[in-house]
């Protein structure tokens, strides 16, 4: 159990470190702050425009299209700034996963309350002996789970990055509109 707690703490520290690196490399820069403010402002105006009941259909639609284009451009620019942090963060995470896997190699840190599907066993059993039970869990799997959970929590709590926009393609979010061409 102490190994499990140690791995969870390590994944928390790793997530905090990667968020701190992203802040230092990208989030605190003036260019990113300007783009973030523009994204927030444009999203607010876009939502107001979509909810407006007055105004003619054609003009309103033209304004909405203009705002959506501005929003997409701002997000794209901010995304290219974030690429710098993404590369560094990716390397740090890979190094952390390798270090944890090496440090806890051969040790079962947890017992899974289910039998993992064959395609996931390479992750749940990474570094464990071949004859270890199916429900044995390696440090790597716990570390990856912790990373996913803590990264999302830290990101949502601190809100240093861009606001979460629509992450689904339009044909998934609104298939009827995509087929009929109406908005």
């Amino acid at each position, binding site marked *: 159990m102490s190994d499990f707690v140690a791995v969870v703490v390590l994944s928390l520290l790793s997530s905090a470190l990667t968020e701190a690196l992203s802040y230092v490399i990208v989030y605190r820069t003036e260019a990113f702050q300007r783009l973030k403010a523009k994204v927030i402002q444009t999203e607010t105006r876009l939502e107001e425009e979509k909810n407006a009941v007055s105004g003619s259909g054609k003009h309103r639609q033209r304004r909405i299209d203009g705002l959506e284009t501005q929003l997409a451009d701002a997000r794209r620019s901010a995304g290219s700034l974030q690429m710098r942090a993404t590369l560094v963060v990716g390397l740090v995470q890979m190094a952390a996963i390798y270090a944890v896997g090496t440090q806890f190699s051969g040790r079962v840190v947890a017992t899974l*309350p*289910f039998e993992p599907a064959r395609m996931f066993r390479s992750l749940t059993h990474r570094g464990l002996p071949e004859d270890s039970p199916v429900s044995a869990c390696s440090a790597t799997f716990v570390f990856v789970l912790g990373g996913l959970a803590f990264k999302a929590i830290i990101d949502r709590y601190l809100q240093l990055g861009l*606001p979460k926009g629509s992450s689904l393609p339009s044909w998934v979010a609104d298939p009827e509109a995509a087929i009929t061409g109406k908005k």
Partner: protein
Amino acid sequence: MVKSESEPKLTLWQKAFVRDLEWRKDELRSVVFWLIAAFSLSIGSILGVLGLRGLPCLIVYFVGVVVAPSMYWSNFLGIDEQDFGGKMEILNDSIGSGAAMFMLSWVGFYTMLHT
């Protein structure tokens, strides 16, 4: 939804406990994220403490993590999910991290108490 001029300015968490207010998409997604986080940790802890195992637990979780927030925003907040791009648009960035939190708490408590 028409914005009422007389609505007092509430914090996000105050809004989460009041029915029939106007919501922005980012506000709703924030509240849903934390709701799913709390739900995932709770369900994972309960299943782990009780020592329950197997696929039925995963099914219960994945059904619950979609149904519970949907019932909250449609029945309590009075929101039409189509105004925000549909159910998956609201849940999209919360389910992955919620599933990770669920697995971590389920595995952790099960390991601590039943092995």
